């Protein structure tokens, strides 16, 4: 990767700046260009990068970056802090309440990881919080989508509500919810078919499912490798469904995961979990500070900064 040396670049630029003693606008621009490139290579959305670097630039001028003995690190620290804050600062947990019926709905593009994640969450909350979950299979389009959820459910010993040969996801959702109420499941998770955010008919279907089941969480599942497109996807799903949180999948890959920043910056909704593998236990809480380091490609620098 070209930008693995981000930290070094910063040190060089700042060594030069330090000799001059004062930061002028052009200096800031130069530094910002490096950050900008690093963020773009990490797939942070372009518009987000622009605004973010502008904010950082303004903040840096007002700070005692140059009088510091290590201005490069000082500056990176500002960048990282800002980004961490933007990413939510603290861990934001799922909305679940014991003793009530918790209704979750999975939405997202094709292949993002909705079905797998639905099973992972059901398993996690069953194990850790002693919920009694029910999975409802509302994807009537993808071949063997229902079967996939059934197999995952069987593996986890979690019940699945499904209707084969019925092509009416709204009806299935309704009857699934009914079953969950009657049989006292306190966590019911609806898997839905993948769809493009520009597909009006299918987006409308999601709105109708939402109206039918009245979810306490609507979770937008996003592939962690998504590029510039993440903002369009998040915006549109959020506009139509007012989602409650985001799950970033496939973070076990080597993506820098800039979609995380793009999405939280754009729609202001928290990322709650990340998917870190294909196994049904591969799900972790989202840590904003770790994500910031990852986007900046400076995992190795972290411990260094902590000491500074």
């Amino acid at each position, binding site marked *: 990767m070209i930008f693995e040396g981000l930290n070094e670049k910063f040190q060089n630029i700042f060594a030069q700046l330090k000799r001059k003693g004062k930061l002028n606008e052009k200096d800031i621009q130069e530094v910002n260009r490096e950050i900008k490139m690093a963020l773009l290579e*990490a797939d942070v959305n372009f518009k987000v990068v622009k605004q973010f670097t502008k904010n950082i630039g303004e903040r840096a001028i007002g700070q005692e970056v140059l009088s510091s003995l290590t201005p490069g690190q000082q500056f990176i620290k500002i960048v990282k802090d800002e980004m961490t804050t933007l990413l939510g600062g603290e861990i934001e947990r799922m909305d679940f309440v014991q003793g009530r019926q918790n209704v979750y709905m999975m939405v997202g593009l*094709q292949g993002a990881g909705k079905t797998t994640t639905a099973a992972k969450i059901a398993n996690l909350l069953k194990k850790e919080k002693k919920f009694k979950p029910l999975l409802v299979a509302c994807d009537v389009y993808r071949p063997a989508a229902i079967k*996939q959820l059934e197999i995952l459910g069987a593996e986890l010993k979690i019940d699945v509500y499904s209707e084969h040969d019925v092509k009416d996801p709204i009806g299935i959702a309704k009857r699934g919810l009914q079953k969950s109420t009657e049989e006292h499941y306190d966590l019911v998770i609806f898997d839905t078919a993948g769809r*493009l955010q*520009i597909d009006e008919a299918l987006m409308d279907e999601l709105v109708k499912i939402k109206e039918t089941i009245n979810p306490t969480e609507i979770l937008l599942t996003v592939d962690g490798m998504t590029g*510039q*497109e993440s903002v369009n996807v998040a915006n549109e799903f959020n506009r139509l469904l007012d989602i409650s949180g985001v799950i970033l999948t496939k973070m076990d*890959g*080597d993506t820098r995961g800039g979609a995380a920043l793009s999405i939280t910056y754009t729609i202001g909704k928290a990322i709650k979990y990340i998917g870190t593998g294909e196994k049904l236990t591969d799900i972790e809480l989202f840590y904003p500070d770790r994500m910031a380091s990852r986007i900046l490609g400076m995992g190795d620098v972290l411990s260094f900064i902590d000491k500074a």
Partner: protein
Amino acid sequence: IKTADNFKEKIENVMYMGSFDDDFFDELEETLILSDLGAHTSVKVTEALRTKIIETRSKSKEEVVGFLKEILIEMVAIETKEMQNPTIILVVGVNGVGKTTTIAKLSERYKKQGKKVIIAAADTFRAAAVEQLDEWAKRVGVDIIKSSTGADPSSVVYDAIGAAKARKADILICDTAGRLHNKVNLMNELQKISKTISREGGDFTIHNLIVLDATTGQNAINQAKVFHECVEISGIVLTKLDGTAKGGIAISIIDEMQIPIEYVGIGEKSEDLIDFDPKKFVDLLFE
């Protein structure tokens, strides 16, 4: 396909600036990055255009847009090889990009061309992967060779090659489980499948296709590189171009790796596959 309102608008804005100075080139570079071309290729394209403008002393916006298109078309126009009979196609890629669906689409296409197609369900890992491919085989009307979930994928491929020879198939297409390229054991497993194909393939030409999702960002470059090191990729299928993603990452992959895109996926149905056409692809960016 709606590849690019943004790109078009952006390019128009850039061109509107009137003079082809540093600001113009900076803006252009940003526009290219906005389309997932990546910093590296964007700089390269911008520099090529700068050279061209200096050479021709052109001051016309239309002409400059034309140059830009030419540069991009030249970059992505790589000759694809004619499909041989018989061929084994191994389909690889990371999770959820559209491998299995693409196999259904390819089967339909080759079947329509009058070829005898067999598909092999060598994703024995993901829940209901075999059932998914099986369902497609029924819909499209092609033979499928399968085993149970958990079976060794190489042995499924081995059986499938045997069947393809015995039944005199023209094309055998092997599905594989999605795998992230940084998982060494899974990449080794893929290499083993590939070796089985080389060893058992006989008269069959071998064609390794990587499926890339147009929504993917810079990571697609790593995907292409690492899969290529593992099984020597000879073609690319770019899926999900029916969305608003621009698939710009494909330009930088072709540029860096010199592997052609052969097909483009534009939907979830078995007929939603078109040939990759460099000129159309680039034109679409500007439409």
